[in-house]
């Protein structure tokens, strides 16, 4: 048995420490520890209610847009405000740009180096002028002797399987994706002011009116990103998948999935079961149960603090009653953890009494299994299963391979749908509908909820207002689900802890395979 600690886990948002126990070349147990606490839920209390969305927007700078949207929608719910349909459309457009940016960035910059050996790319034989130029540039960089952020990578590790030529192709797209993800963020800025942290969707809807040139530029930038997705991202996924089919048997996890849903198709009522990625839960997929169940946020969601450095309470609490308060009991610097006690800043969210995995895989599963018959998810997933030789067997997707594939296929759907939403916006404005905002009450009192998925999974905000001030506020981020520490009476592992179990590991000094499982969740 060997203890392996990875701290910091890199190429993620936030700060994460992971400890695993390895036996006979496989992970047999795991503990995930978030090592950052800021206390935004405490800070937003007693603030003017309209301001709250700016504070809670700041939870995440990689996925700020859905935090902004959830906060605004939750506050609208508490204040009894219904945003106009066009505001929902504008939120769609902002969210789509966020997703285009996020998933491209994730595939290449955050996740790519787990599968692509940049050093091997130097020895690729190619006659393509573009690839030769990229190769020369990489070589000049390496020859400079200043490898910088690429220094001490895992290049040469036996778990890298791609031929040199494919490594070079992916390396070229890795470099190019840096520009492409910036273009996607420029699209968001055109309608939101800037990215990260757009400014245009406070409670009540969309606070400005888009001008023609903004919409034109937005569309042009989305088309540019879509071209890259069609010409590089999707082909790259299909090209590398056959070399990494082993990943279909790794990172299996609990087999529980859920999504709040994201991107409104029902612009009048915002029905979450009609979203482009619809709301739903699957409990027990590894036991063959792939039926999609509805989610009742009041009945089904509980947060535990069994293993958390949080003010302790009995059992699990619904977020409207939730308590956030730092109570650190660990070792200095979190150099060591108490595996049987409290070992993380993160709380543990459970759905219907069990830990649940969230993210693009869950979102795509809900679309695949409960979306309309013509949903693009069905065709894309079926085609991909065929490409990896698993036709008609979607259960191979309940794995690291599935998480990687789901992100890529999802962003392909988003890229196409975004252009539909642009056309919808042009059409309604041409038809004279200029209602973007509904005035809001001055001093509302009430309870609010919004569940609207972030790129990396289920995200929800719960707010309680009293006389126009925030009385209570709770957020459950995707990490609150995926990176939950052990919780409940049985101290059941969190989803990532469970998914790490069984991960093979060739060299405990260079734990590349663990990073693959971790990055498949996009922490």
């Amino acid at each position, binding site marked *: 048995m060997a203890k392996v600690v990875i701290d910091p886990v890199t190429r993620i948002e936030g700060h994460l420490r992971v400890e695993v126990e390895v036996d006979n070349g496989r992970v047999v147990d795991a503990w995930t520890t978030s090592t950052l606490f800021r206390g935004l839920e405490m800070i937003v209390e007693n603030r003017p209610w309209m301001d709250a969305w*700016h504070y809670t927007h700041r939870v995440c*700078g990689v996925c700020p847009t859905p935090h902004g949207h959830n906060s605004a929608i939750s506050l609208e719910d508490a204040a009894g405000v219904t945003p106009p349909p066009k505001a929902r459309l504008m939120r769609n457009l902002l969210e789509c740009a966020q997703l285009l940016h996020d998933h491209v960035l994730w595939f290449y910059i955050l996740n790519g180096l787990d599968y692509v050996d940049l050093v091997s790319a130097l020895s690729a034989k190619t006659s393509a002028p573009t690839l030769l130029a990229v190769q020369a540039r990489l070589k000049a960089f390496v020859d400079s002797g200043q490898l910088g952020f690429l220094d001490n990578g895992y290049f040469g590790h036996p778990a890298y399987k791609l031929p040199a030529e494919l490594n070079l192709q992916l390396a070229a797209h890795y470099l190019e994706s840096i520009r492409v993800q910036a273009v996607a963020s420029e699209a968001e800025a*055109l309608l939101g002011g800037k990215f990260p942290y757009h400014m245009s969707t406070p409670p009540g*809807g969309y606070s400005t009116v888009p001008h023609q040139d903004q919409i034109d530029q937005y569309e042009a930038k989305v088309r540019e990103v879509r071209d890259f997705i069609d010409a590089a991202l999707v082909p790259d996924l299909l090209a590398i998948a056959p070399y990494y089919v082993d990943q279909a048997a790794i990172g299996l996890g609990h087999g529980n999935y859920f999504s709040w849903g994201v991107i409104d198709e029902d612009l009048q009522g915002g029905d979450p079961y009609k979203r482009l990625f619809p709301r739903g839960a699957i409990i027990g997929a590894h036991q063959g149960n792939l039926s999609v169940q509805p989610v009742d946020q009041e009945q089904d969601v509980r947060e535990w603090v069994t293993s958390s450095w949080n003010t302790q309470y009995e059992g699990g609490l619904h977020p409207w009653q939730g308590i956030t308060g730092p109570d650190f009991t660990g070792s200095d*610097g979190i150099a060591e953890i108490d595996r049987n006690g409290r070992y993380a800043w993160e709380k543990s969210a459970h759905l219907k009494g069990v830990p649940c995995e969230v993210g693009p895989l869950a979102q795509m599963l809900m679309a695949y299994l409960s979306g309309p018959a013509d949903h693009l998810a069905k065709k894309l997933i079926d085609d991909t299963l065929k490409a990896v030789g698993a036709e008609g067997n979607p259960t191979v997707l309940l794995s690291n391979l599935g998480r990687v594939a789901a992100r890529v296929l999802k962003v392909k759907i988003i890229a196409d749908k975004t252009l539909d939403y642009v056309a919808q916006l042009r059409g309604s404005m041409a038809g004279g509908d200029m209602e973007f905002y509904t*005035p809001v009450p001055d001093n509302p009192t009430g309870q609010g909820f919004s569940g609207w998925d972030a790129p990396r999974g289920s995200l929800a905000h719960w707010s309680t207002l009293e006389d126009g001030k925030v009385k209570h506020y709770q957020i459950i981020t995707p990490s609150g689900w995926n990176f939950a520490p052990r919780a409940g009476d049985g101290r059941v592992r969190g989803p990532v802890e469970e998914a790490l179990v069984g991960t093979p590991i060739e060299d405990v000094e260079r734990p590349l395979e663990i990073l693959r499982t971790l990055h498949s969740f996009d922490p």
Partner: protein
Amino acid sequence: MRLLTERPLSRRDFLKACGTLAALMGVGQSAVPRIARALEDAAARPPVVWLDFQECLGCTESMTKSRYPDFLNVVLDMISLEYSEALMAGAGRQAEKNYADTVVGQPGKYVLVVEGSVATKIPNAMTVGGRTSVDIAKEALTAAVLVVAVGNCASFGNVQAAYPNPTGAMGMLAFMEQEGIDTGKLIQLPTCPVNPVHITTTISYFLTYGKVPPMDQWHRPLVHFGRKIHDECPRRAHFDEGRFVEVLGSAEEDERLCLYKVGCRGPHTYADCATVLWNNRANWCIGSGQCIGCAEKDFWDELVDFYRPMPGVAVPGFGGIRADADTIGIGLAAATGVAIAAHLAVSAAKGRLGRNEDQVVIEEKEE
């Protein structure tokens, strides 16, 4: 598909980039040859360590959106990014080696970029590699040749330092003063997130002139933080003429009238957002939204109630600058007269107004 990445910057592109940098650095085009020499003659690209403490990664995100020059050119051609948790190929022990090789191995040789605040009251609310942010910051700040605090978190603690500041979040200026670390090498770039233009110009200035640029008392470069948003705002003419947006998302907003009455903090905020803009000059907050004052210290406590107008601004049409102007301030005058005076007194005492004090409009007239 044509790849931008096919080639490094050509000579022509490079000089163009230097020209852009010169303009953004506020040093004039005559400095271009000097900037070019500084960026290309160095024997090696300058090592840069980018540390993340209590943050949201939004500043790293923002930096990767740089287009003057492209972020790719920054990391391949301009600097040697030795450590960045967001980008490094290695993790854990391998990542720690990158840190040690530079911070311990090359003291006095590296530029330190800090994203995020240090947790001083609950040190274990922020740890990396088995050490608290307090420990790491002391070591890395002391040995750096230049410290660039990016974003409001690293500068002033930002939202996590807002009341009641549960973790004791602290920005670099306060932290370095507390720890007795030389603040002469500190530059702060406190918007939320940082504007990547501010980073590329700041580092270029340092590489060209070997010193920090002229700064205010908060260590903000004057070229970027020396003027009020309000004074450079394209909506300013509407303010002067008394034409205001009364309702968000309305026909008045469609005309891009002034946002003061719906809460814009442009009159209270010193930054060059109106001229530099954001995301490859796509837009800025006042273009689609409003300003909440994110370049300022403690704006989450001091500039709040973001959707109501802030007192302390002389508004045309209020007090007779224009007889036909809007009726802003009816009912506001008596209530805010005292509040305004108090606010300014507090601000002056804290030094918030700083060297720009004479530019702040403090005129306020009774009806």
